[in-house]
């Protein structure tokens, strides 16, 4: 199998890694780079668990050939915040009960972040549209939508 050198920026750091043209980005992230925060719920673009942000846009990493990330900037759940410096969306997801089993959570948070990167005053409708590709079987989406709204408010306050 022919392998290629893929160079891209991952969570702000340059990465160089050998991949096969057949590899999907989700597998490169999870298996080769051991960033298992990005989940795989279907592998077919039907659940959003694998959502990452590539060049500012939320995409399903299970439908992105790894090679498409060439020279791109990729953000995953591991890169957006953690203890001491949580992203507002992470904070509101934790505080408002938007997390249950947590399997959809990384993808859900990435979709939310991508939305809030574009607008910090989303309507309920915009949130629903932006998250409609992220299946969550636990929450009924109620607290997730509330959390995104609350995160938007936090971000507006900071601006």
């Amino acid at each position: 199998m022919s392998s290629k050198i893929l160079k891209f920026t991952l969570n702000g750091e340059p990465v160089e890694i050998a991949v096969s043209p057949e590899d999907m980005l989700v597998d490169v992230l999870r298996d080769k780079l051991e960033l298992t925060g990005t989940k795989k719920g279907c592998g077919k673009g039907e659940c959003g668990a694998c959502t990452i942000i590539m060049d500012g846009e939320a995409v399903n990493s299970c439908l992105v050939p790894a090679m498409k990330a060439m020279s791109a900037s990729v953000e995953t759940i591991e890169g957006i915040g953690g203890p001491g410096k949580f992203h507002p969306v992470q904070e509101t997801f934790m505080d408002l009960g938007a997390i249950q089993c947590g399997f959809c959570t990384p993808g859900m948070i990435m979709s939310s972040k991508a939305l809030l990167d574009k607008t910090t005053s989303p309507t309920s409708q915009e949130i629903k549209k932006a998250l409609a590709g992220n299946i969550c079987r636990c929450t009924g989406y109620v607290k997730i939508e509330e959390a995104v709204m609350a995160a938007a408010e936090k971000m507006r306050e900071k601006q």
Partner: protein
Amino acid sequence: MLQDYLFPETISEAVSFLKSNEGQARIIAGGTDLLLDIPEGKIKTSCLVDITRIPELSKITLEDGVISIGAAVTHNQAANSELIQEKAAALAQAASCVGSYQIRNSATVIGNVCNAQPAADTAVALVALGAVAEIANPGGTEYVPVEKMYAGVGKSTIDSASQLVTRVSFPAAQKKQGTAFVRLHQRKALALPMLNVAAMVALEGGKFLWARIAMAPVGPGPVRALSAEEILKGAEVTPEVIEKAAQSALEQANPRSSALRGSKEYRTSVLPVLVRRALEQAVANAGSSCK
């Protein structure tokens, strides 16, 4: 087995990559359909030629009243474009219905057309808009109406191993012209349509100058409701006329029964409702309301 992945910088480079690989290479844009087909063995290719980094293909332009959409333009770019929203509302609506937000960030409008699914939402809209595709062949450029790009169910006339659709173009809606797209689906995202209909109307003095209606899945690709268009031509804009046209749409429609998305009977029964709603919206968008 996939061996190579290339990023041409120009259209001609893309076409020559295809040529030098003698049918073993294939165009990839968003890849959201292609990458499901390759592992399943439905498509065999050894090299993918990624056209999304060819600068001129990423543009949405308006020139001399004609809107063009490049092959790398994604559904979200089309749906969020003010130009498209204003001058081709049907396409903006159709593009915003496909898959999910993430899919629409990857999947391209032209990819949707080339994949030739019978009810491809943007293809339905583009047919109603009278769109023409520009195709780069090894031998030169060719123009084909989107309506003629279907060679059968799931079969495009485009051979992505040797050809590249570079853009689709259609006239921007002018004053007193309106377009609309309606879709019947089982949920609002991650669902193929049970039926979808797009319409474009041109009005003049309370009458339809002309109308173009596309509907799916009622044939291999988007199907023109020619009888309805005929009825509307020159007719008064009234609910009765619209209803009559909507009913006649069935004359060209041949929906199949789908175990997942509705029986032939159901689709047949509700198609006129959708055609009527599309026409009503298109008329409203044309700035006139239907009395």
